C-alpha cells in the first residue's frame, strides 16, 4: 500500500520563488555553469525555470511508501490540509481559530506537514502564511 499526493502549483509562483532565491535566470545559469551538474538543487531549479518560462505545465507528486504513513497523515493533520486547499489563512493563529484548535498543536502539525511537503509557508512581514497546493490524496493498494 502507498499514498500518492498530487500538488499543482501555478508556474508563476514557482518562478517568483526562484527570483527571490537567485535573482535572475542568467545569474543562476552562471552558477550552474561553474559547478556543472554537481549542485543538485541549482541544476534542477535552472531546468525547471527554463521550461516554465517556455510555458511548461508544473506537476508535483509525493509518494509515501513506508509504513509510517499514518504517523504523519493523522486525521487532524489532514483536516488542516483539507482546510488550506479550500480556504486561505492569513496566519497560523487565524488557521488555528478557524479549525477550533489551539495554536501550539496547529503549529506543530503544520511543521510535520511541511517536512512531508504537504504544506508550505509564505512570509508576510512577521507572519508565516500556511499554504497547501495539494489537490488529491490517494491510497493505493498493490496486488
Amino acid at each position, binding site marked *: 500500500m502507498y499514498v500518492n499526493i498530487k500538488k499543482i502549483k501555478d508556474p508563476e509562483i514557482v518562478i517568483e520563488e526562484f527570483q527571490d532565491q537567485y535573482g535572475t535566470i542568467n545569474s543562476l545559469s552562471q552558477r550552474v555553469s561553474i559547478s*556543472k551538474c554537481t549542485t*543538485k538543487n541549482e541544476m534542477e531549479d535552472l531546468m*525547471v525555470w527554463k*521550461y516554465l518560462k517556455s510555458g*511548461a505545465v*508544473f506537476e*508535483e507528486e509525493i509518494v509515501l*511508501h513506508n509504513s509510517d504513513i499514518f504517523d504523519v497523515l493523522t486525521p487532524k493533520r489532514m483536516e488542516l490540509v483539507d482546510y488550506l486547499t479550500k480556504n486561505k489563512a492569513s496566519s497560523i493563529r487565524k488557521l488555528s481559530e478557524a479549525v477550533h484548535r489551539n495554536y501550539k498543536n496547529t503549529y506543530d502539525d503544520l511543521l510535520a506537514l511541511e517536512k512531508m511537503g504537504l504544506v508550505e509557508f509564505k512570509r508576510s512581514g512577521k507572519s508565516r502564511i500556511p499554504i497547501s497546493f495539494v489537490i488529491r490524496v490517494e491510497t493505493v493498494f498493490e496486488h
Partner: protein
Amino acid sequence: MRVMKKKIWIHKNEVIESLVIAEGSKIKFYSHTYLVRERSRGWRPYVKWDNWEGQPHVDKFDANETLIEQKPCNEKGLEEVIKLVKIFRRNLITMDLSQL
C-alpha cells in the same frame, strides 16, 4: 511540455527526489537523487542519476555533499531507480553503479 517533480519516501529517513521534463512522450531531462536524512546534517544526497547536457551519468557524494565519483551509465527511469534504491539502499555508495 511538462515539468514533473516527485518525492518518493522509501523510509522515514530516505527519499528519492525526481525531476523529469518531458515534451510529449520524449524525456528531455531527468534527475533522480537518493537522499538520506542524518541526525546532525539534515538531508544529504548519496547518489544522483541525471542526463545533464544529454550525458546520462551517475554521481556519488561524500558526507560534505562533495562529488566523489562521476561515471557514465545507461539512461535511468524513475521506476528503475526506485527498484535499485529499495534493494541496495545505503550500499549503493560502495557499488559500481555504472554497471547496473
